[in-house]
């Protein structure tokens, strides 16, 4: 019997689906509508199935459509075949997407930009087709709060953060540099020596949005010899760039952000590269195949679309001083 079915010269699954819908509606017009097709081809397909199976499925003798005894006998097995096919397809999707299904609320840094966010959505759709993604923009502090109060499932944050209670997934990095008005003398150099910035004020995002990263940047400037006379905290990247364009402050951003703004030039700082790290994190107690899959998809999209690279998993440099050594 199986051998005979497999040798049928028709798409059995598709024809069985037509059969079940017509049996459900007992009306060719409404069935055709449900199947988004015209009525004549539907009638032809049913006749074709009847020919291949060698039995009449529907009684079209009257103005009404009814199942024949053979049709009634075969509708159950037809449903069984289609249910098994659905399970097969769902199983394949689950294997491909790591069993990632259901709803997942993802927070991305607001400065990620619409194009990159779209790349994330596409990547998640590609790798986790069974997953419904709910996307929102959330700065680091806001994202950490949302993960705690369970209004987000996965988020990107700027490191360093307090990792207690979190699983830190992929960590990506990108160079950060200083933004200068395109015509400024410093913009002519390939790299800007931090000392050349003298005491030029620094414009950075509000500290509360990512305090760890904020302090790391300020510290990095100081360590490299740039001692800003003041650190301003305009809300939003455009405002920080505006201060740069107006010549009242210099700001630090990634090259992708600078490229979006005409009239400014992005230059890396000379010396040890200034590196910003972004991690995909989720609450340690709520990891699942879905969080793993989405984290990987986010990392891949950020890498492709924003040129971020995996951060080396380097152990932090720790010089233990005798006064802080174990057992002194």
């Amino acid at each position, binding site marked *: 019997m199986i051998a005979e079915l497999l040798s049928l010269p028709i798409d059995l699954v598709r024809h069985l689906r037509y059969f079940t819908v017509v049996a459900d509606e007992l009306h060719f017009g409404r069935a055709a509508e449900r199947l988004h097709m015209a009525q004549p081809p539907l009638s032809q397909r049913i006749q074709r199935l009847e020919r291949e199976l060698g039995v009449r499925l529907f009684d079209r003798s009257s103005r009404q459509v009814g199942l024949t005894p053979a049709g009634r006998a075969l509708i159950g097995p037809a449903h069984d075949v289609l249910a098994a096919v659905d399970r097969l397809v769902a199983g394949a999707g689950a294997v491909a997407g790591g069993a990632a299904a259901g709803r997942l609320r993802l927070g991305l840094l607001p400065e990620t930009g619409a194009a990159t966010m779209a790349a994330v959505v596409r990547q998640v759709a590609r790798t986790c087709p069974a997953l419904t993604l709910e996307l929102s923009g959330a700065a680091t502090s806001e994202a950490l709060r949302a993960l705690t109060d369970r209004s987000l499932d996965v988020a990107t944050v700027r490191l360093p953060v*307090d*990792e*207690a*209670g979190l699983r830190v997934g992929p960590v990506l990095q990108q160079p950060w540099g200083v933004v200068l008005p395109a015509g400024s003398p410093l913009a002519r150099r390939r790299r800007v020596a931090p000392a050349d910035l003298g005491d030029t004020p620094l414009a950075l995002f509000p500290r509360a949005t990512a305090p760890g990263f904020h302090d790391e940047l300020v510290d990095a400037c100081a360590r490299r010899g740039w001692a800003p006379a003041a650190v301003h905290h305009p809300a939003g990247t455009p405002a920080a760039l505006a201060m740069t364009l107006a010549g009242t402050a210099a700001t630090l951003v990634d090259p992708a952000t600078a490229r979006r703004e005409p009239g400014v030039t992005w230059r890396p700082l000379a010396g040890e590269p200034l590196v910003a790290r972004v991690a995909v994190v989720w609450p340690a107690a709520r990891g699942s195949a879905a969080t793993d899959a989405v984290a990987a998809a986010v990392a891949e999209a950020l890498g492709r679309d924003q040129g971020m690279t995996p951060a080396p998993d380097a*152990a*932090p440099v*720790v010089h*233990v*001083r*005798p*006064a*802080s*050594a*174990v*057992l*002194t």
Partner: protein
Amino acid sequence: MTIEREIGRVFERAQVSAWLHVADIDGDGEVALGADTPVAMVSVFKLPVLVALHRAGESGVLDLGERVQVPAVTRTPGVTGVAALCDDAELSLRDLAQLMITLSDNAAADAVVDRLGFDAVTRTLADLGLRSTSIGYACRDLHAALAEDLARSGTTLARAMGDPAALAGLRVLDPATTNRSTPREMTALLAAIWRDEAAGPAACAAMRRVLGLQIWPHRLASGFPADDVAVAGKTGTLPPLRSEVGVVELPGGRRYAAAVFTRSRGRTLSDPGADAAIGQAARLAVDHLSRP
């Protein structure tokens, strides 16, 4: 503001939890903050070992001049003293005890403990009425427990800093699973040494001398920068724990025993703020008690 509030604010500014007892060695005055709470002693356990060793020497059970081999390959590692040397060493028991106290030398401490035995330490504690103090782990045992616990959670001490979950699994930080005492029992032990009650006068004088030679300036001593104030003591360090127990002698002869144990909340192994808070808190307490 009460003195306890004032000291509490010092600890709060330094972002540490703390347990303190400061007592007048020759009177009844005291300042107490969680003074009877069990605390992990870390290297402070070397102080009762010193007392037990000198009692053993005094009673003739041990000859403190006995030479002890401390081979490079088998001794307990550390960052100071014999523990940090490159070659085999041989010192007298008395000198090993001195390095154990003045530098917190872990190899010297374990060499002393190996010769002395924990039973002698336990008897000393019982004789002096220190019922909340319990000592049964040498430095190598503490190292091993720490390494084992860190390996189990796949982390390092530096990475575990500031992570309550990671630190919760470390037995060496939990008074229930390591050498333990209370701030009040440590000031009682120090007062006994300074009053010649922990052993005979000669042994107590020897112990006072050794405690006065301790090198560390960043904790108790940092609170008393005056040249006419003497500070002697023994530190304890295993980040996030920092402590010192010691004696402050003021010009004019008034003497105070201080025991300060802290636990940092920060993310770094180094915490100079916590070190300094130990000195500041002891200073506030001593000033309070010595006010005419």
